[in-house]
């Protein structure tokens, strides 16, 4: 078991290294794409700044707390895209390009991350961390809430990344297309930059279990500022783990529908 994990991890890191090397061949282009990936964070920052400059803002959330939430939402968005580009992945499934990944002696899910991620999204991750750090330097948070928040963020991000793998496979099986997934991810990220309460119960459920991006943005931000207690924290943590397992198992099952030569 442990040997298996190490083998897969080594393969993933090695693939990451070569993805980076090939990405950096065109250095100017790499720089431009990294800058582009920070624009989503910039857009969130401007949006929140405008809201708080002309109104009292959103109830229960100060300006800097909202900036932290924006930072987290954009970090998870960039992590998703760093790990998997659904459009590219579904296209590879469709034209039979996934065959090569299946011939390798590694977990096929790891092969997906190794082949279909987009390295330039590191720019979005860095800008998200930067905004979060700036927000935290202006608000009072304790060490325990930071650790708890990081835990929620980690498991939440894992669940949402696995969800993207699963939904890409569902999309391939049903429609043989995944062009719209990138767009849906962007819209849900934009939605998860704000407190979920403003979307009502339906919206909250949608962003918690339907497209669980809230697990890695809203709830960790709530934990960071102690807006939820530790029982709630544990419940969200368990939910993230359970969803991750469900999405992983379903993805493995859906991979059986892949036919060489696509469809």
């Amino acid at each position: 078991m442990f040997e298996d994990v190490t083998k897969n991890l080594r393969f993933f890191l090695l693939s990451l290294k070569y993805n980076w090397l090939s990405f950096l061949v065109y250095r100017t282009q790499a720089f431009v794409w990294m800058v582009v990936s920070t624009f989503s964070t910039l857009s969130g920052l401007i949006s929140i700044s405008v809201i708080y400059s002309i109104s009292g803002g959103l109830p229960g959330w100060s300006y800097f707390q909202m900036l932290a939430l924006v930072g987290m939402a954009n970090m998870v968005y960039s992590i998703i895209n760093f790990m998997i580009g659904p459009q590219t992945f579904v296209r590879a499934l469709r034209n039979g390009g996934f065959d090569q990944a299946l011939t390798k002696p590694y977990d096929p899910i790891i092969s997906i991350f190794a082949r279909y991620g987009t390295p330039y999204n590191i720019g979005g991750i860095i800008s998200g961390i930067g905004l979060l750090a700036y927000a935290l330097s202006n608000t009072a948070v304790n060490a325990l809430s930071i650790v708890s928040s990081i835990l929620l963020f980690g498991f939440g991000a894992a669940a949402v990344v696995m969800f993207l793998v699963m939904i890409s496979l569902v999309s391939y099986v049903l429609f043989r297309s995944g062009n719209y997934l990138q767009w849906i991810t962007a819209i849900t990220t934009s939605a998860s930059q704000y407190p979920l309460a403003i979307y009502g119960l339906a919206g909250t459920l949608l962003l918690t279990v339907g497209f669980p991006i809230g697990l890695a943005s809203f709830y960790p931000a709530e934990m960071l500022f102690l807006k939820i207690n530790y029982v709630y924290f544990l419940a969200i943590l368990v939910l993230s783990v359970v969803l991750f397992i469900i999405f992983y198992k379903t993805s493995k099952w859906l991979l059986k529908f892949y036919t060489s030569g696509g469809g």
Partner: protein
Amino acid sequence: MNEWLKPYGSLLKINFKNTTVYRADMALSTVLTLVSSLVFILVWSAVYYFSSSTAINGVALITTIAYFLVIGAVDLVEMSSLVSNMQNDLQYGNIATSLIRPMSYVSQLIMGIAPDMVILFCFGTVPIIVLVVLLGNFAPSIVTVLLFIAAILVGVSIFNLIGFIFGGLSAYLTNVWGVYSAVSWIFAIAGGGIAPLAFFPHAVTNALLLTPIPITAYVPAATILGMIPSSIAIQSIVVGLVWIVILALIAWFEWTKISKKLNAVGV
């Protein structure tokens, strides 16, 4: 005259047929654009709900809601595949086939993007705006409607001229999509896509109104909803026209240079 127009008609007909093959994709684009607007509508509704006054910077909630719907509707008509079409043509040599046709390459490009725009305008933009105006009781005057149409035409022209300039850059760069994405983001942020420019500091709004950015989103939406007086709309349209001339000159200069580099395998 008739014979001269015939090839254009045939090409346009084929492009319309090609576009309507992916009807579900077009419907999905429309729906997702509106869902995207819905996020902003819900956020701003919450801001208004918890605000002490019924209007923020003189803009009422109903106008802000309508604004984001109109922005989404205007956005539909401005999305075009011009940059990717040009990049494919120039880098993979597809342009060689285009150049042997009895019409200019630029005309072919325009006819390549026109069907998408016309269909999305007729079945997306117009119905959404009519519904918004009727349901929100906005009652724009004929002059306002004409200014709105003029602003959209100027905005679409500016967007496509910028697309043409960046598409042309693919003769020199390996991939222009990154740079163009950056420009599109700037247009979305500074053009009123995340908040009406009326909510920005006055100095920023006034400075932005001198650029070609607000005419692509804020000005048409604010005009039809009565958020800006006709004089500001006219001034923005005039500024937009000046920018069209500037961008057209840049595009012409760039295309003249690229034309010299063209060969059977592209550039």
